[in-house]
């Protein structure tokens, strides 16, 4: 992890975000169960090689900003009680999330 402090960051801790709902044909590490879901940025965690290009031909450059994002389990799974405080944490590249302008509401 390097060069993080020089990168412009599109997101900050606490931001409400939504995961893109895409299924590209290239290698990607965004699991299906959080695509299209809404969560909150826990923190910016640095810049990392781009595994999506490095998996094919490529050196994974330029590095991509990555964020730890938190989801409410109750928003991910029907069987989870809405009163539960349990969470899911996952690391996502900047290009996989967008600002969620909708205030309030559920994570779906």
């Amino acid at each position, binding site marked *: *992890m390097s060069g993080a402090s020089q990168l412009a960051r599109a997101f900050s801790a606490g931001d409400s975000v939504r995961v893109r709902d895409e299924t590209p044909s290239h290698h990607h*590490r*965004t*699991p299906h*169960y959080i695509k299209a879901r809404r969560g909150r940025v826990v923190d910016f*965690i640095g810049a*990392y*090689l781009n*595994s999506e290009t490095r998996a094919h031909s490529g050196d994974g450059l330029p590095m991509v900003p*990555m964020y730890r994002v*938190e989801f409410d*389990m109750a928003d*991910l*799974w029907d*069987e989870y009680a809405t009163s539960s*405080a*349990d*969470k*899911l*944490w*996952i*690391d996502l590249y900047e290009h996989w999330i967008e600002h969620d302008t909708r205030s309030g509401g559920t994570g779906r």
Partner: protein
Amino acid sequence: MSNREGEFFDTGWRPENDVHRDEDGRPHDHPGVQEDVSLGVRAARALAIHELLVEKGVIGSKDVDEDIAGRSNRSPANGAALVAKAWIDPQFRETLLANPNKTIAEAGFVPEHGADIVVLENTTDVQYMVVCTLCSCYPGQLLGPPPDWYKSLAYRSRAVREPRKIMSEFGLDLEDDVEVRVVDSNSELRFLVIPRRPPGTERWSEDELAELVTRDSMIGVSAALTPDTVNA
């Protein structure tokens, strides 16, 4: 480490019995002589690939052996030592949480590692549990090789959906007011969980404390051992 439940499963491999074969080069599935061993096609294919790579000079004949030998000091004892020190030494705990890679490297009792580590601390408010739903990412330098169950389709499917049920299966019935955070290890970062320090261990030494820290508790599916479960 011993083979108590939840402890590191010692495969028995040692450098002196690596790639155990008879005179004709016929491999054995287990160290030691074994008759009538059937070798699956995929396994034979794996050995064929290795043989071809060595013949063509793509890899050296000893390269795999050396890599195997280089892994021999990877075990949960490494992670347990870090946890025990964090329990006893508040300063160490702080730097371990804030700057894990540097702290681990400088601690000197963990073999050199290249992975980018994040340390997560279980408290009376939060319980972390780690999974890799996409494959099997795991902090091998600190915990040794991952157990079969961690790599299983069942764990990878269920962990993000019903973590408390899994913890129950592993003997941990978590209080309702503790927040569970399931961490899907999908990036280059690897996660080490510091389990809660068991009560009744206030005067214990670092070495004694390390004996309570199981591999499974550093994944987050169960708690550390309690004093009454350890022989005096």
